[in-house]
């Protein structure tokens, strides 16, 4: 796993490089070429978002596995019966829809859950090649994901 700080730093440099290319083309009076680099800048930002979200999903999976295993270990059947029907082994954790996995780690409908939903919606938009209504800024999103991951890891 690549740490978020390195991902963010790489993004800052590459995003500015693309903006430099856009500006260079405009300065030379080549707006069409500038528009091409502007589109590539969006692709670059989307790629970084997907990398970050993939790592976030991996962390969600690991936290869910740990939680399910702990709860399945309860001695009382009344306590473990709901957890017994979940299969957390290996990639089987992915059979639980992503937002349900998120709901195991944070209260459904609460602000953290809603933030995860927002990030998941952005991920789906980008994965399906749909344009976003607003630009995303990675500087804010990396911090947000770090904070959410920290909160989820404190789930009892």
């Amino acid at each position, binding site marked *: 796993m690549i740490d978020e700080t390195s991902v963010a730093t790489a993004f800052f440099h590459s995003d500015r490089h693309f903006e430099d290319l856009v500006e260079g083309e405009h300065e030379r009076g080549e707006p069409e070429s500038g528009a091409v680099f502007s589109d590539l800048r969006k692709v670059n930002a989307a790629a970084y978002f997907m990398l970050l979200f993939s790592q976030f999903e991996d962390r969600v999976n690991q936290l869910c596995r740990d939680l399910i295993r702990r709860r399945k270990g309860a001695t009382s059947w009344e306590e473990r019966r709901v957890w017994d029907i979940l299969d957390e082994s290996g990639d089987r954790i992915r059979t639980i829809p992503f937002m349900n996995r998120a709901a195991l780690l944070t209260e459904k409908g609460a602000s953290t859950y809603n933030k995860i939903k927002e990030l998941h919606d952005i991920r789906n938009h980008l994965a399906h090649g749909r344009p976003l209504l607003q630009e995303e800024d990675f*500087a804010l999103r990396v911090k947000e994901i770090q904070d959410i991951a920290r909160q989820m890891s404190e789930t009892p």
Partner: protein
Amino acid sequence: MAFLTVDDAEPEKVPTAEEARAEIEDWKRRIAELFAMIRSVAAGLGGWTADDSRTSVISERIMQLRGIPAYPLSILELHGPGKATVKFIPDARWVSGTRGRVMILGTRRPARLLDLSEGPGTADWRLFDPMTWQDGGVALTAGAIAALIGEAR
């Protein structure tokens, strides 16, 4: 405020054309104030001149959805000793979680400005770079601007 449904995602709030136009006017005002502040700091450093004669053309998805035509917005270029040039380029008004983004070119640090203000009438420009993003950026004071200009390549 109207709503746009995009496939399986939650409906996204889209400003009406009237709201979007008002936001653009507010964004232009905030950019003008920001550039005036930067020019003032640069003038105090000595050896730097400012030029905002070039423009970038802004056309965002919300504008396209509301039939608002693209518009030009000034780029602020600071020219310093030697061939040092620092550029402040208004990038987008609609950036999630912000009220606008300005890209900065020509400095050692890859930096950007994000306006984190709550609503129209005010501005809270914060400087984000690889060293400050984890703290939510740093406030754009005269000192922060001077330090940035001092890094011109």
